[in-house]
């Protein structure tokens, strides 16, 4: 299919969905917001060695919080001229954009097409920048800038950030140096020196991983495997019951045997023959059951995500379903004919 035909198919699908919805009436794909005005009287701050000081002032701003359509209907029913709960054009456009991206990604099920590639190009750029921004505000500002430019940070971003000790300031200058060296990777001549920063990252990761994996995986999981092979289960009256005791004991035995057999299968220093071979075979059966369960869980997780996307399309965008009662008809009817215009 040529790119132009692919575009036509995607646009046709969107037009068909919107057309069906519009023929039913009652509107679709709108996001409402509530206007919240905030006024704060700020006291004067005296000039100190860490702070430049600031005069007393009144700071005002308006925030728009997303609300369900019900709230808009109710507000309009009470006062049709109200401007507190209103339609948000940026968020409505965003909702339609989200619906377009969702359909564009789904279109890949047919084959690769310009719509999918457009969404792919968008997500590459957005996600790269998204994680950069998160890293900047969560790590670089409080730790690096908080260490080397503490005065600037408390005067503009984080007023409660405690003053760093001298060692931390030195460490942050060191971190800045290592970060700068790492960026030499982009240069063709100085790329070799970036290996120093990489070495630091590799070394710290290796040291951390040894401790964390031995502590939380190797030791914790081994300890958890030491289970009583006979596990008496008392009923509500305090008397030990045979059935639950058998099931609990069997479960513990199966876990201990399973872990030992799987580990035997992973142990390649001994040839898998005789008793070792039989234990390894039982280990394989356990692993197959584990992989089957993991497969089942993965499929369930993906189907749940798929259901969430379909719900987004049919509930948030097309307004064809309303499981949460966000657009209750009684409220709408009471509010009058303006609702679905």
């Amino acid at each position, binding site marked *: 299919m040529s790119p132009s035909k692919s575009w036509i198919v995607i646009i046709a699908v969107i037009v068909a969905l919107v057309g069906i919805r519009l023929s039913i009436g009652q509107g679709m794909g709108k996001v409402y917001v509530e206007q919240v005005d905030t006024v704060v009287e700020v006291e004067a701050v005296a000039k100190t060695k860490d702070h430049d000081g600031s005069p007393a002032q009144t700071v005002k701003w308006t925030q728009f919080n997303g609300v369900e359509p019900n709230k808009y209907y109710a507000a309009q029913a009470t006062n049709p001229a109200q401007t507190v709960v209103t339609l948000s054009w940026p968020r409505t456009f965003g909702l339609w954009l989200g619906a377009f991206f969702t359909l564009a*990604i789904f279109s*890949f099920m047919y084959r690769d097409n310009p719509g999918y590639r457009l969404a*792919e190009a968008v997500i590459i750029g957005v996600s790269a920048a998204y994680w950069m921004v998160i890293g900047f505000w969560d790590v670089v500002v409080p730790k690096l800038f908080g260490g080397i430019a503490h005065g600037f940070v408390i005067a*503009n971003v984080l007023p409660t950030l405690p003053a760093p000790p001298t060692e931390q300031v030195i460490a942050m200058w060191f971190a800045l140096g290592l970060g700068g060296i790492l960026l030499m990777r982009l240069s063709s001549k100085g790329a070799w020196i970036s290996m120093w920063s990489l070495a630091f990252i590799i070394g710290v990761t290796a040291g951390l991983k040894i401790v964390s994996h031995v502590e939380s995986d190797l030791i914790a*999981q081994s300890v958890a495997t030491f289970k009583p092979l006979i596990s008496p289960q008392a009923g509500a009256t305090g008397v030990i019951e045979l059935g639950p005791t058998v099931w609990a004991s069997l479960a513990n035995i199966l876990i201990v045997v*399973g872990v030992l057999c799987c580990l035997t299968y992973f142990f390649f220093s001994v040839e898998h023959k005789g008793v070792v071979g039989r234990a390894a075979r039982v280990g394989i059966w356990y692993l197959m059951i*584990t992989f*089957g369960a993991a497969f089942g869980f993965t499929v369930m997780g993906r189907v749940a995500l798929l259901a969430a*996307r379909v719900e987004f399309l049919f509930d948030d965008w097309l307004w064809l379903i309303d499981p949460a009662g966000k657009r209750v008809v009684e409220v709408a009817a009471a509010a009058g004919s303006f609702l679905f215009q």
Partner: protein
Amino acid sequence: MRRLIPMWIAIIAGFAMLFSAFFPVTEFFGETFGEIFSVVAAIAYVLGAGSLAKINLAKISRRDQGWGYSAITLFCFAATLFVGLGKIGVPPNAQFAALPWSGEKNAEGSAFAWIYEYGLVPITSTMFALLAFYVASAAFRAFRAKNLEAILLLSTAFIVLLGRTFAGVVLTGWFPDWASGLRLENLSVYIMQVFNTAGNRAIIIGIALGVTATSLRILLGVDRSWMGSGGNS
């Protein structure tokens, strides 16, 4: 020398982290190195951004096939970075109202939150949702109950899938109480609690041993493959 210095940096940094878990005297080094690590890792995002810009700008300047998508990538990258770093549309924290940058970077109503909600979430979650079709399709083509191992894998997958849905309850809900353990929802729980626990536990122990061995090889300077070609001992 170009290989010796990085090797020693890795050894010193690694052992500092390792010793800090065992000797309280060296705890300070562990904490400080951890802080430096997190900052360097954050700066590494800049390296990723540089690389992204370099590759896409080259594609655009050469007018390679699909260069328009590279332009879109760069535009989206720059726009997200601008609104995120500038906290565009972020109201200040009410406690520190005089500081315009004191608000949360992803506060409701901000441009960054808009990009997250209407760009990042729809695309990434739909991409993951697509896998439901591909996993099912691949399983249909690849899974064949040819031997005992394959039968175990297939039947477990079916039990777990059905046991977590209403269909499983309907199919085996008529089982009498004395056989309630065989109802799909109960069977699914038993498989997860017993067989899956045992298998996963062995896998986790195996991974822990593997990671520890590999990390030790790096810290002892035996494994130098991370330095690139020719780095192996």
